């Protein structure tokens, strides 16, 4: 019975007209970036890293903090590649290495953003499916008040841009 219902649902989906494309205003692309990922437990660790970056006048284009479990977080920070040596030197400092783990760096990435997002899950699913079905690896996702941003490899940017232009309707 359940199988039959599922079959009917699938047939209905196949027969259904294609949903209208979601209307968006634009795509934003960042300059080339480096993405640094690490986990930490005490907030001091993240504050210290942000302090050192600020002291060295290093811009942050993308920052996210995500809980892993109680008092255990992951952070992702993107910075300009011309600051790479300084950033890596910060992450090599003993007071930093002692308080973070799982450090990884992705060099040569871009942030591609779609707007307006406005919390619409349809935009998120369409973005995710479009990239995923075309082998554009999403390294990180983050939302702002009206923008959804993805970190992708720079070499995939032209393909990603074209895919988004086909997947969404831009006014």
């Amino acid at each position, binding site marked *: 019975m359940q199988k039959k219902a599922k079959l009917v649902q699938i047939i209905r989906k196949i027969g259904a007209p294609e949903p209208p494309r979601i209307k968006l205003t634009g795509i934003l692309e960042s300059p080339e970036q480096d993405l640094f990922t690490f*986990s930490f437990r005490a907030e001091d660790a993240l504050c210290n890293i942000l302090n050192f970056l600020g002291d060295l006048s290093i811009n942050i284009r993308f920052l996210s*903090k995500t809980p892993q479990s109680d008092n255990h977080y992951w952070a992702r920070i993107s910075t300009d590649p011309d600051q790479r040596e300084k950033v890596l030197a910060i992450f090599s400092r003993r007071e930093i290495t002692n308080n973070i783990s799982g450090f990884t760096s992705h060099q040569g990435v871009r942030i591609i953003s779609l707007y307006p997002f406005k*919390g619409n899950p349809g935009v998120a699913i369409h973005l995710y499916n479009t990239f995923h079905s075309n082998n554009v690896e999403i390294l990180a996702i*983050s939302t*702002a008040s009206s923008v959804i941003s993805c970190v992708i490899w720079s070499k995939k940017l032209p393909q990603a841009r074209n895919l988004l232009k086909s997947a969404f309707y831009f006014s």
Partner: protein
Amino acid sequence: MSCGTTFDKLEKTRGMKKKLEIFPIKVQESLILLYITMTEKDNETLKRTFELLEDNNIMIHFLTEGPSEGGNRNVSLALHRDDFEKLTNHSGKFQLFSKIGNIRITKEVGLIRILGAHFDIRPGIASILFNAMRESGIEILANSTTITSSLILVREKHLDLALRAIQSVFKSPGAE
């Protein structure tokens, strides 16, 4: 530099004479924070989560996704309490979430939106914000900062304190 740096000290060291002006701060209460850990090859969980939200016209108030330990990925998602209850009260609709082994839920969460600080071109602004929150004893549950805006999730009981901390470092219309 210790994490206990005050804004006054930062003003001196970074030459900032006055508080940065930002747009009015927006606050959203009554949110639920879901955080999910997925394996690297799990392509379905996030897709099905988005589908579930779209099918039920549920707004995403906050979303971050990225690499975590052991090659896994983790996702933070904030939904309104009423929307979350709508999902959990209808049998079957919550099956997706119940099938995900590593899912944690934090209730009574508030979202603060800071807009206009230009985090991307003003080095040290994120540091000032995070230090102000830390010095006030506020745990930032999750954060997403891109270009001009920062979304901060805190426990609802910390909302007033968090707003005061933010207003101590940014000048927002309507705030003293």
